[in-house]
């Protein structure tokens, strides 16, 4: 009898063990998620054009829409008696990481002499930087690499020798941006909020030209802003 029972018992034990493997009182759910660095630049709103004679805003900015603004600065010869023709373009930046805003500008003129409008004749600067609204990181210091509003007296003057008006301050005209050059940088802009939150960092970009005895012709100014998270 014991001879028969031993194999029988072993079989039962084996069957029991196999049965138990099929059941469990615990289960596991493992999860992961990735957050990549994210930056974006959009329009901060409508363009403001002042001091112009003729011209106008051809394609205006729309807040939180892609930045694609087109401006006709109008007459820039002496027949425009205003001190400056100034375009103020609001920018809106958002990021979850430290950011760098750089800019590249090209200026092409139909003129053929040194009296044509060149990159150095187009004043540029970034204005007051504002971090406000729900979901925006209010702390940290943004570094403006430009000299601000180019029409400020401190940022330009008439050259005593040539008589030409010059934007003389640091990075105060487009000749400083013939290749990608940092205009603004700072720490992360947005706290952990969804993209549907419309707030962000706002800063106006100023472009200014002083009407002068430029060589007659037409001039095209193209500016590209790029924001990165290095």
């Amino acid at each position: 009898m014991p001879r028969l029972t031993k194999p029988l018992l072993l079989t039962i034990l084996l069957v029991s063990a196999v049965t138990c493997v099929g059941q469990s009182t615990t289960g596991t759910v493992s999860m992961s998620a990735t957050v990549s660095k994210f930056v974006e630049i959009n329009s901060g709103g409508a363009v403001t054009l002042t001091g112009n004679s003729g011209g106008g805003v051809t394609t205006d900015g729309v807040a939180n829409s892609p930045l694609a603004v087109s401006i006709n600065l109008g007459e820039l010869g002496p027949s425009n008696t205003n001190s400056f023709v100034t375009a103020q373009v609001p920018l809106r930046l958002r990021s979850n990481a430290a950011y760098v805003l750089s800019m590249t500008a090209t200026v092409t003129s139909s003129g053929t002499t040194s009296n044509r409008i060149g990159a150095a004749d187009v004043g540029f600067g970034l204005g007051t930087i504002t971090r406000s609204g729900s979901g925006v990181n209010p702390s940290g210091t943004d570094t403006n690499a430009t000299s601000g509003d180019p029409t400020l007296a401190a940022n330009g003057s008439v050259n005593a020798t040539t008589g030409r008006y010059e934007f003389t301050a640091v990075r105060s005209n487009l000749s400083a941006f013939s290749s990608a050059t940092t205009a603004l940088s700072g720490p992360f802009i947005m706290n952990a909020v969804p993209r549907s939150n419309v707030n962000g960092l706002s800063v106006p970009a100023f472009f200014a030209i002083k009407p002068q005895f430029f060589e007659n012709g037409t001039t095209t100014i193209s500016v590209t802003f790029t924001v990165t998270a290095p």
Partner: protein
Amino acid sequence: MRFFIFLTLLVFVVGVQTASAQALDISSGGLPTITGSVNGSVTGTANVTGDLVVTINFGEVSPLNTNSVVKVLVPIALRSNQPYQVSVSMSGLTNANSEALQASDVGFGVQNPRLLGGAGQICNQSSHIIRSPFNNDPALSATISGSGRVSYPSTLASLSGPTVILSGPELSKNNSSKRQQSDGWIFDAVFALTPQFFVSGVSSATLIFTISPGPNVPC
């Protein structure tokens, strides 16, 4: 003869242990699904007799993912011949930076308890109770908090140690020693994660679902 008695007792003990093992069981309740993800995935078995081993990759949850929410639904099957409870414990997801992904950013709810086939037990004297605050679909109940961050009625931060999320009466009609295709109940564990301006990085967490004897409620 003495040896035979010993063997008989041993067989009895083994039999008792086997019955105990089959009293409470948790397994896959079907194929998990994911929606709204970018480069995300979820793996698990569609076989309701397979173990509950699910891997969720929510994918990209920065604003690069323009979907409103990443939602993952994990069906979980339960079997028992006695009152039960299901608890969940979590490990991981401990980012020090408050603007990085936190446990409170992952909505977690329990939905849709339903029979797993004809051998699932229907009890008239007690019902299956999804414990507060987990009775919600977090993907449908997300709100924006005062800070602008997305919040949910219940999240992974609602898990404080092993936390009971579900309990009720016995789940199975039979006392089969094996998992079967139709001998219990299924519920859905629902996870939701809204893409936001989180601080960059990779986060991970592990949840352990455990079924154990629950409050003694009648069937």
